[in-house]
């Protein structure tokens, strides 16, 4: 158990094991994305009320769900870095931010595109949408704050604090559709009780959610690998890797 944590703190080990994981996870992710999105886009029946516009659900919901999950990853990594000063946690926090920002952007944008035919407007200052916009600003804030510091240790600490303070936003996003019921519909999938979505729509949605989780994991690992190399530019294992000319 402890040896695992020791290995986790070792950049060369993390670099090589993530390479092995990606060799499998990346193709699986791409196939799952292709199957899930094609299924939702072409093979499901339209919603009886929203018609075909509802097909956006297969990108909007997974992007939003994983954007939130990504924030947990980033904030937990930040906390680990603050408490135990674990360098790898700082690498993970920094690497999660751009992926989370991209997914939050996708969730907001597809939400706006879905809103036009469904609600008649691209944008409304609804609680769910506003709190997701704040999530995007939190992600962008972490990226900008990290770049603003020359001292990367101080940058990591400041970003970790920002991540943790930003956690306040997470329960607001979850509960916003129940607390301030306006245009955004409440959750259709529930862990407890019956989901209000037909299984013919639920299965492709679950597949795309899983695929988006895998996508996040792949992008996080790939960002971490690039970051590990840049931080280790003066170490012998990185130099050896560069001189070997192998990029895998």
């Amino acid at each position, binding site marked *: 158990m402890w040896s695992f944590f020791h290995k986790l703190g070792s950049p060369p080990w993390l670099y090589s094991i993530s390479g092995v994981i990606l060799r499998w996870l990346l193709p699986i992710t791409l196939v799952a994305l292709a199957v899930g999105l094609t299924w939702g886009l072409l093979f499901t029946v339209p919603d009886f009320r929203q018609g*075909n516009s509802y097909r956006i659900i297969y*990108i909007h919901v997974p992007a939003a769900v994983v954007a939130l999950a990504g924030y947990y990853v980033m904030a937990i990594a930040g906390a680990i870095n603050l408490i135990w000063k674990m360098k790898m946690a700082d690498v993970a926090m920094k690497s999660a931010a751009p992926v989370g920002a991209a997914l939050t952007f996708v969730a907001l944008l597809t939400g706006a595109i879905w809103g036009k035919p469904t609600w008649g407007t691209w944008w409304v200052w609804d609680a769910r949408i506003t709190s997701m916009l704040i999530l995007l600003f939190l992600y962008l804030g972490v990226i900008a704050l990290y770049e603003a510091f020359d001292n990367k240790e101080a940058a990591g600490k400041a970003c970790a604090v920002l991540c943790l303070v930003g956690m306040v936003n997470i329960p607001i996003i979850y509960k916003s559709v129940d607390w301030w019921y306006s245009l955004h519909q409440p959750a259709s999938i529930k862990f407890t009780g019956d989901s209000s979505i037909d299984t013919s729509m639920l299965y492709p949605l679950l597949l795309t959610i899983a695929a988006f989780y895998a*996508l996040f994991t*792949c992008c996080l690992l790939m960002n971490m*690998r*690039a970051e590990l190399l840049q931080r280790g*530019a003066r170490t012998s294992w990185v130099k050896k890797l560069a001189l070997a000319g192998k*990029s895998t």
Partner: protein
Amino acid sequence: MYFDSFDALLTMGGHGGFVWSAYLITILVMAAILIAPGRRRKKFLRQLAGELKRSRGDPNITEEEV
């Protein structure tokens, strides 16, 4: 497939523009976040290899400094 013609697939009963643009933009963003980290990593390795090779050719720098 749900749609019985290519035309129906494109228009989606009037929602085609919304659905297709949402999917297209999403796929572009996905491609960007999938491609960018690998490019950054490979570019860094290439640059570092170049620097190391140059400094090796420089007689003023000892092997320890490389």
